């Protein structure tokens, strides 16, 4: 196998596995049986001074190239030898900015199918990070004591997991809607309070809830108004009244024909190039 030979040559020449600056490479395998490992690339999570980050400085390890069968628990288990792990989070892409804490509901935001991911691992102590960076590996995702299921077993488990409890769903919907109703009621009350009350510069805000309905401020509505104006103007205009208008319409017709002719010629040219005129 060409690929393998080359890889061996590279590995033999370099001695250690190459890794980009700042990262250390740790081989990871699914199980003992797997021959060729993937490599996790580990680095301490750092951001520039002053930039906000949701991950605690010094204690966070950034992991690149996490294989799809490696789950959060599993990664936590693999790295707990370096020190106690506080949290593990897997993401599709690395993000430096604050990751929005979405309310992840298992009903409305089902977990997507994982690919290769990145992980942020927060340790309890900073020194665990340096210990992790010097890991040798190879790490095993699935061991006899902690088997990780894949394939048929995983899909069956996923299927069983996808059959959800309707009662829990009802509960979640109800709580959400209660909160929502409360929020809208508050907003409405506030709007009502402001209705007709001029602000400090004396402007009165006109809302949909006023006594007289007003045009909604949407793009479609303003386009409609413009269109109506245009039509009105067109109706008033005289067509083919003056001699020059007559001349111009004729010329316009000729120009149309010319344009059509040019287009047709281009099509013919193309068809000739494609030998479309060979009938058989």
């Amino acid at each position, binding site marked *: 196998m*060409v690929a393998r030979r080359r890889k061996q040559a590279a590995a033999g020449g370099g001695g250690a596995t*190459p890794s980009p600056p700042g990262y250390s490479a740790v081989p990871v395998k699914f199980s003992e049986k797997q021959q060729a490992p993937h490599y996790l690339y580990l680095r301490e999570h750092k951001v520039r001074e002053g930039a906000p980050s949701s991950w605690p400085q010094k204690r966070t390890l950034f992991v690149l190239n996490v294989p799809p069968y490696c789950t959060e628990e599993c990664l936590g288990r693999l790295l707990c030898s370096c020190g106690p792990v506080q949290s593990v989070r897997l993401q599709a892409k690395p993000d430096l900015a604050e990751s929005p804490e979405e309310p992840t509901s298992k009903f409305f935001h089902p977990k997507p*199918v994982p*690919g290769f991911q990145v992980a942020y691992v927060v340790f309890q102590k900073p020194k665990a990070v340096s210990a992790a960076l010097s890991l040798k590996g190879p790490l095993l995702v699935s061991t006899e004591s902690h088997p990780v299921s894949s*394939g048929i077993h995983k899909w069956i488990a996923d299927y069983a997991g996808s059959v959800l409890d309707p009662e829990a769903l009802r509960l979640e*919907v109800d709580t*959400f809607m209660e909160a929502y109703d409360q929020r809208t009621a508050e907003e409405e009350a506030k709007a009502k309070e402001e209705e007709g009350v001029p602000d400090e510069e004396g402007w009165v805000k006109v809302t949909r809830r006023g006594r007289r309905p007003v045009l909604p401020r949407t793009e479609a509505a303003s386009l409609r108004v413009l269109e109506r104006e245009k039509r009105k103007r067109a109706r008033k205009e005289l067509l083919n009244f003056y001699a020059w208008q007559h001349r111009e319409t004729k*010329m316009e017709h000729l120009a149309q024909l010319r344009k059509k002719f040019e287009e047709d010629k281009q099509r013919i040219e193309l068809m000739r190039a494609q030998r479309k005129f060979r009938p*058989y």
Partner: protein
Amino acid sequence: MGPAPAGEQQRGAPGEPEVMELAQEGTGKEGKKASSKKRAAAASPADGLLQPVKLSRAELYKEPTSEELNRLRETESLFHSSLLRLQVEELLKEVKLSEKKKDRIDAFLRGVNQSIMRVPSVPETELTDQAWLPAGVRVPVHQVPYIVKGCFRFLPPAQVTVVGSYLLGTCIRPDINVDVALTMPREILQDKDGLNQRYFRKRALYLAHLAHHLAQDPLFGSVRFSYTNGCHLKPSVLLRPCGKDERLVTVRLHPCPPPDFFRPCRLLPTKNNVRSAWYQGQSPAAADSPEPPTPHYNSWVLQDTALESHLQLLSTMLGPALGLKDGVALLKVWLRQRELDKGRGGFSGFLISMLVAFLVSTRKIHTTMSGYQVLRSVLQFLASTDLTINGISLCLSADPTLPALADFHQAFPVVFLDSSGRLNLCADVTAATYHQVQHEARLSMALLDSKADDALQLLLMTPKPMIRTFDHVLHLRPLSRLQAACHRLKLWPELQDNGGDYVSAALGPLTTLLEQGLGSRLHLLAHSRPPVPEWDISQEPPKHKDSGALTLGLLLRPEGLTSVLELGPEADQPEAADFRQFWGSRSELRRFQDGAIREAVVWEAASMFQKRLIPHQVVTHLLALHADIPDTCVHYAGSLLDSLLQGLKESSNTGEEALAAAVRCYDDLSRQLWGLEGLPLTVSAVQGAHPVLRYTEVFPPAPVRPAYSFYEHLRERASLVPRPDKPCPAYVEPMTVICHLEGSGQWPQDAEAIRRVRAAFQLRLAELLSQQHGLRCRAAATHTDVLKDGFVFRIRVAYQREPQILKEIRSPEGMITLRDTPASLRLERDTRQLPLLSSALHGLQQQHPAFSGVARLAKRWVRAQLLGEEFTDESLDLVAASLFLHPEPFTPPSSPQVGFLRFLFLVSTFDWKNTPLIVNLNSELTVEEQAEIRSSFLAARTQLPVMVILTPQDRKSSVWTQNGPSAQILQQLVVLAAEALPVLEKQLMDPRGPGDIRTVFRPPLDIYDVLIRLSARHVPRHRQAVDSPAASFCRGLLREPGPSSLMPVLGYDPPQLYLAQLREAFGDLALFFYDRHGGEVIGVLWKPSSFQPQPFKASSMKGRTLLSQGGELVMVPNVEAILEDFAVLGEGLVQAVEARSERWTV
């Protein structure tokens, strides 16, 4: 005497067209110059992409020249549009002979003339004494009976004349034929040579001697025999130049009698010229009955005498008019694309020229008309005139001695008399052929009138081979059976008239018989015309049975196919006897509900599939009954592909019934939804959105009856779950139904809140359906699954305004604008466009019962080629629908077979780059709107997907092809279709049987880099494979309905789950191909671009590893690990991963 006139004519006649040709080329060159200038400007159309035209203002508004105005006016008055005019001009350029070639042909003709005159004479011998013939040549006719009176000697021809289309300038490429008439000297012929084939025997001997001597001339590359117009009594010699000009031209030599040799009154259609006594070899005393007339024989003799007068007529009529010649050339192309002009009894180019002459003489065509107008007028005339009832005549004289048209109608099916009033030009044309011509003319007129953009393309450039035109095709083989049929049908006089050609004799009666039998099921019956053979001069002429098989094409009437009953007359009527005689033992007396007792024939057909095949039963029954042709000789190609739509162990239907059952169940459910009490808002619409509900699911769902012991139970959710230790359970796909709820002020105006409200409705629906109708339901946040009569439906609640709310964006000024977002587009597609499409296609199925079969076969094929995942269901359905809505130049298919062939043809020839496929559902788009769509398509081409399918509901964006296929995948499909089509057509047209019809459904596997073999145990649809396995696994189903109802396992298909994982993990490194219908292998193609080493980048590290290459760190795919991942991710499912590593390098 001899050569001079020929030479003169050769030089004289083409002289004129030369000038005209030059004029034409002049305009052509101008056009070319202008366009080449433009080509440079418009970024070279060499890449095959049309660009929107940009013309400067000055160019658009400059003063027109008078030439330009003239041309524009001409285009407007003579053609339909400038595009049409340009197309016609281009086409004519392609088919007409160039001057250079004409010169070479003229030179060759002079050589032919000289060699013919050099052939030595032979002394007189008896006709039956043929010992003088040299060894290397055989007489090119069958001399049956051999004994004939008369003497023969060879003398060089009295005159050699070029006749036919070459002189008129209407011959078209690629087969250039020049007809040369050789006038035999009077000394050769004797009185009464018109009798008993004597003239034809002499003619044949004349040619035999001639051919022998010409064969020794080095001027000729080949000298062969053939038949004039396929008539087996009239051979001709074919001469081809030697060397590189071999394919340039074929010169055909036709001997003819000296002028006024035969007395025309002897050759009228009512006269007999083949005596029964001679023909049957009996003594004259035995024949006391009157001799039967021999109209065909007579007209063959007459044809030879009229060669020159026809030429004269045509050259005076067409000679000076350029437009008429163009028209004839176009008509010839038209005939040829429809395979109407070839073979014995075809509607030849000569006939069409004579027809144009006739229309000129009746002032229906004017000499100043353009070629396009001539084409139109002739088609119009053909479409509206039935020559089988009202014959026409070129004869203007009112001579009372001339026979009446009625006499000709008695003798011939189609009547078109020449200027002498004695010769029927359509003598050999059968009624079926003429009806086919008429049918084609009607279709073409409709197409031209529709003002379609590509009318000319469809009319003149699209071939219409028999197998792709007709719904069912049947082959009669061996042909020798027809001889027995002739005797059975008592066709002895016809045999005598046709000189023993039993194929021609039987053709007419057989087609009439079948037409009568098929009755209302039939739209048109056409037959193949026996091909004109060509053979070496040293061989015996081919026998009648050597022309292979007789092929009949049936164009069916879909509405007639639904009835299994052939209703006859009432029992006491006199016609009842005829009916009984016609149908034989199949006819039986039946009592009907209205009390009538009638003769009737009932065919056994329960399913749609069997009903489509009733014509097969009719044909075999009638042929066996009336013509002694057993069903082993009838090879019926009408349903050979249907087996690919049949489920396991089911050969009696193709699933239409099962689909209808599912749709009925859905109708029930929708009624229950409408009538549901206790919903806070009322249901405003229930719409199906699943292929089953528009009849296009390849394998229709069967009611599920799970065997509970086979599953794990989830008691509290009343659901079944697959067990890891058992084979994968049967695949059950829930059918999506969209349920719109009425709009109301109660709906929240926030996207997240709407989702929660919808979820609440899903829960409520489940509750109410199980309370009020006792259905097993399972609700989730986005859908409710309902189990009803074994079918599972997935009801999705939708709110009309939701897509709009998702679109709303508030600008900083507080203005609300609507912008498409991915989420809004997806929602709109799923809840609005998909139901609309489904109902439109459902309607199409009601109009065209074959739609389901065609769409499913097409989908089946695409999926079998492992490309199914790249094309959405809807896009393939739309392509299939376009075959029904825009069938031109064909008619809408009435059988899955022909529809599938046209699907392959469409896919392989459609220009996806430059044209959108417009599917005019419900004919909502007008011609103008379509033109507008086309032009806006060109302007926006670069933003549109590779494959663009537009419908009245979706005029701009091509929703169903947004996410694929990619250009490469589409190209692959085009290539596969182009390969499959000829293979399949050859199989179906093979009269010995199709062989293995599944060949074109097996995908090529050698193109893939890695093959992942799956274990059949976990492929739930294993049985659906193209080559259905002999044994498979138990899938946990019962034959009988089980006791209670737990929700079965839904949508659990391990290969699909596996593929989803693979695509997510390795999607940017490789492509994965799989046939969801029982595929046991996944094909993997590496993306070449991903194998390029790239510099390190954190966000694209996925599955790659680092290498130091030349001191630099680069990323390359970690192929070994990935290959092992393939096995790890699919544990239990994957059997083996075969890497064909020789195909790639890292």
